[in-house]
C-alpha cells in the first residue's frame, strides 16, 4: 500500500471516504562540530552551505517518515493538506514540524 501525500485539500481524481484527524511528525537534527566549523568558514565568501542543505533534507525526510508512520497506524492510505513548519531552536540545528490530515480514499 502506497501512502499518497498532497498539500491540497483532496487527492485529485479520488474521493475521500473517511477522516482520521490530525497527524504530525517533527524532528530536530544537527551536524557534527567539524561540519559546523566548515560552514562557518564558508560564511566568509558566501554561497551555498551544502552541509546544512543536506541537514535540511535529512530532517525533512525523517519528519515525513514519522508522519507516514502515524498515519499508517491509524489505517489511513492518504494524507491531505500537508504543511511544513520550521523554527530555530539552536544555532546549527534544523527543526522541522510537518502536519496534515490522515484520510482514507477510494
Amino acid at each position, binding site marked *: 500500500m502506497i501512502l499518497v501525500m498532497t498539500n491540497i485539500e483532496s487527492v485529485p481524481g479520488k474521493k475521500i471516504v473517511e477522516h482520521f484527524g490530525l497527524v504530525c511528525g517533527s524532528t530536530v537534527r544537527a551536524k557534527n562540530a567539524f561540519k559546523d566549523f566548515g560552514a562557518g568558514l564558508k560564511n566568509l565568501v*558566501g554561497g551555498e552551505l551544502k552541509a546544512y542543505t543536506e541537514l535540511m533534507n535529512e530532517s525533512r525526510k525523517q519528519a515525513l517518515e514519522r508522519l507516514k508512520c502515524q498515519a499508517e497506524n491509524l489505517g489511513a492510505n492518504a494524507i491531505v493538506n500537508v504543511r511544513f513548519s520550521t523554527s530555530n531552536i539552536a544555532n546549527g540545528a534544523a527543526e522541522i514540524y510537518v502536519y496534515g490530515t490522515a484520510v482514507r480514499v477510494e
Partner: protein
Amino acid sequence: MADLIQLAIFVAIGYFVGTRIEKKHYRSIKEREKNLSCCPVVTGDDFLEDKPIRTTRLVSGSAVISSDYFKMIVGGLLNFIGGEMSVFESLLDRARREAVLRMKLEAPGADIILNLRLETSTIAGKNSCEALAYGTAVYYQK
C-alpha cells in the same frame, strides 16, 4: 591595527569571491529555470484540467545560502542607517529560487505542481537563509 588589516582582508575576500559566487549562482539558476519552464508551478489548487489522473505526489526541495563577509559588514552599516537592505534581498531570492528548482527536479515529467508553499528559517545563525519549497505534483494519464 592588525585587527583592522585582518578585517579589511576578510571584507576584500568576501567582496571579490562572494560576488563571483553569486553571479555564477544566478547564471546557473536562470539556465535551469529555462530548462524546467515546461512544468508550471501554481500557488492554488484549482488549476487542474479535466483529465484522468495517474498519480499525485508531495514534492519538496530546500537550499541553504549564506552571505559573505562583505555583505555582513555592509548589512550591519545599513541596519544602523535604516531603509532598504538590498544586500540581503538577493540572498533570499537565491535561496527561494534554488529551493523551487530542486522541488521541480524531484518531480521529473510532472504535468503541473499545485499549491506551492515556501518556508524559510535560519540554521547557521544570523547571516544565512534557508528556504524550503513544497507542493503537490500531478501526473495526468497519458
